[in-house]
């Protein structure tokens, strides 16, 4: 009986000791007697770190080595901001990156979108990683031909899973583009000799991003021949019998064409500034002079020459 009580006592003592030795959910610091060996229970709590924009490069999507960009006359050009970002929670912690480009001299990041000066892209895409923390994104912008030439800024804002953000800025250059669009030939139709052929319109349009001035000159068969037209059955029409104007005025008020470049007076074609195309009209008229016996079909040439304004 005594031995049984002893046995139960022993077992209970060990059980109590075991319970006391079990961890109670508090991380203890056990300090040994000689204070040399210290065991520390640690608990790492990863917190969010703010993403950063390390670098922004402006580039032509068709040739990424080109930092200075030539826009497509009369069309669109794909321009990219290449954004290098870092997040200490991993580049893959970034959920969203948007970018804005604007014309540095006159616009700013918060200006409204404008084809001349301001574009935004809210859906940039991850293109690759450089390290565990650094990745690079590409933001595309379809820039129209009349966007201002000069220095443009690119600002990118990066947002991570915890909605913290970082921003950065870069810049690039759009080159000047000079572009002239000329409508169909000048067709006077049929007319009798010693009469005036009809008032015909020729439209010219600036499809670049720079203002241009226009000169005109004419010739019959070869440059400087002093003719407006050369005729299929012999004969011709002298160059001064063809006249032009920038307004729809009478023959007498029109300027006679010459074999040398003459400016279209008071006409500086500014660049377009909206998608509603502005076209300049020129008005042309021909006098069929019998002096040089024009016969058959008569054709000539007119050169519209653009020069930087």
């Amino acid at each position: 009986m005594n031995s049984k009580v002893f046995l139960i006592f022993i077992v209970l003592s060990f059980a109590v000791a075991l319970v006391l030795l079990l961890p109670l959910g508090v991380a203890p610091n056990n300090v040994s007697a000689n204070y040399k060996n210290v065991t520390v229970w640690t608990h790492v709590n990863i917190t969010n770190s703010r993403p950063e924009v390390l670098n922004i490069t402006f580039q032509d999507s068709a040739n990424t080595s080109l930092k200075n960009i030539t826009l497509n006359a009369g069309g669109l050009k794909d321009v990219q901001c290449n954004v290098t970002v870092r997040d200490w929670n991993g580049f893959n912690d970034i959920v969203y990156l948007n970018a804005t480009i604007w014309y540095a001299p006159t616009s700013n990041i918060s200006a409204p979108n404008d084809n001349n000066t301001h574009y935004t892209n809210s859906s940039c895409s991850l293109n690759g990683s450089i390290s565990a923390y650094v990745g690079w994104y590409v933001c595309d912008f379809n820039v129209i031909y009349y966007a201002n030439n000069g220095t443009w800024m690119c600002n990118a804002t990066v947002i991570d899973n915890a909605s913290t953000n970082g921003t950065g800025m870069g810049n690039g250059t759009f080159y000047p583009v000079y572009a002239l669009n000329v409508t169909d030939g000048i067709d006077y139709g049929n007319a009798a000799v010693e009469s005036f052929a009809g008032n015909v319109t020729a439209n010219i349009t600036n499809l670049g991003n720079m203002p241009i001035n226009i000169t005109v000159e004419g010739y019959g068969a070869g440059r400087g021949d002093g003719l407006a037209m050369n005729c299929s059955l012999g004969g011709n029409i002298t160059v001064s019998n063809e006249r032009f104007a920038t307004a729809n005025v009478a023959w007498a008020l029109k300027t006679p064409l010459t074999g040398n470049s003459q400016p279209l007076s008071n006409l500086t074609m500014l660049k377009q500034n909206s998608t509603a195309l502005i076209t300049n009209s020129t008005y042309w008229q021909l006098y069929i002079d019998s002096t040089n016996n024009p016969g058959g079909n008569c054709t000539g040439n007119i050169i519209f020459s653009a020069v930087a304004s």
Partner: protein
Amino acid sequence: MSKSSSKSSIKMWNKILNKLFFGMKLFSILIIFTILYSILSSVLVQAVGISVTKAVIDYENVLKGGYAEDILYVSTDAPFDIPISYELLGDTKNWINVSPDLNSPNTTVFINNTNYQPIKIVINPPVDTPVGTYNGTVRIITGAINKPGGQYGSQLQAAFMIRVTVKVTGTEFLSCSGGGIVIKDTEVGSPLEYYMTVSNSGNIRVTPTAVIDIWNQDQTKLIMSKQLEFNSMEVLPTTNQALSNTFANTLRIGQYWAYVTVAPCGNSGLVTFNVYDKGTIVDSGELIRIDNVAWAKIGDVVPITATFKNTGQRSVSAKLKGVITSENKIVETIDSEFYDIAPGQNGNIQVYFTPKKYGQYIISGRILYNNKLSFEKSSVLNVNEGVEAAGFNWLYVLIIIIIIIIILLLLIRIRRKKHNIRRL
């Protein structure tokens, strides 16, 4: 009978009227389409544009008897070929050469909406040109861009006047830079190919040379040094010249570093290249990135995807090899299955990882493809939620064993006592 005949005649008239009405509708629709087509075609088809990227060119510090060049681009939106020519006007007209020669009687240069034309404007002022500023014009002229159809009409041509300003000086200066240095990977026994670009921004011509020092992988030992020549090729002022050549070597398989110095520019650059076993150079690829979610809980099964691009000429069998580390300790190794990736294609190689503890994990890996290794890429996995599994404590085991032994000893003692009592 009469009723039925009248009904049938009404039906017949209805049919005739319907057909007539339908025919008229069709006719009017056709007329509207014709009018619209003629309006649209007259607006959209007949306009032709020409553009130039530079309308003003300035040449600074051109040496008497020297050389300078610039390039402009001429393009059009016309879907058909338009011939172009040029005219030279002003002070500089006798010093300018245009390349290609747009006025050559033997060839005609055309532009269209798929083919723009670079035009090089070269300035060669005579040796006896006085120092000063000179102005001129290059006019680029298209051929006729349309033909009128009536008895009297004028064809139109478009032109651009490009203003040229040349500042002539008598002072020489040297300014150049070398860059874009590349040494291509090679195979054992094959010559090394090297490339570089020299840009001359001075006003005298330069004859570049380069010295290449090849170091071992750790950059601790100079393996060889070589003076590079480019067949005395000259780089003219205002131009860039791509230079390349090859040289024989006895390098073994491995990675090397080359320190290249370009003379007389003084630039230098460090590049790396590999010497491979014979037959392996055709395989090449790039590990673009390793993707995974940034945040996960303990116990989550996290997919890890490596995107690999096969840039070589044949299919490769690729696998992801790497490690997952936390606090600089390896937690798990990565060794995926092989995936076949066709040339030019991107392939995704996937593995899975289940974090068991809190912390930040760095996932680093390379792609092993046809016995070649890609550059390493890495990503991050952050774990700060979930319940950690309790650690295994040997102290508890020891205590339990001791208890069991004591219990057994006590049981033996009790049995012996009982046995002794029975004997007595």
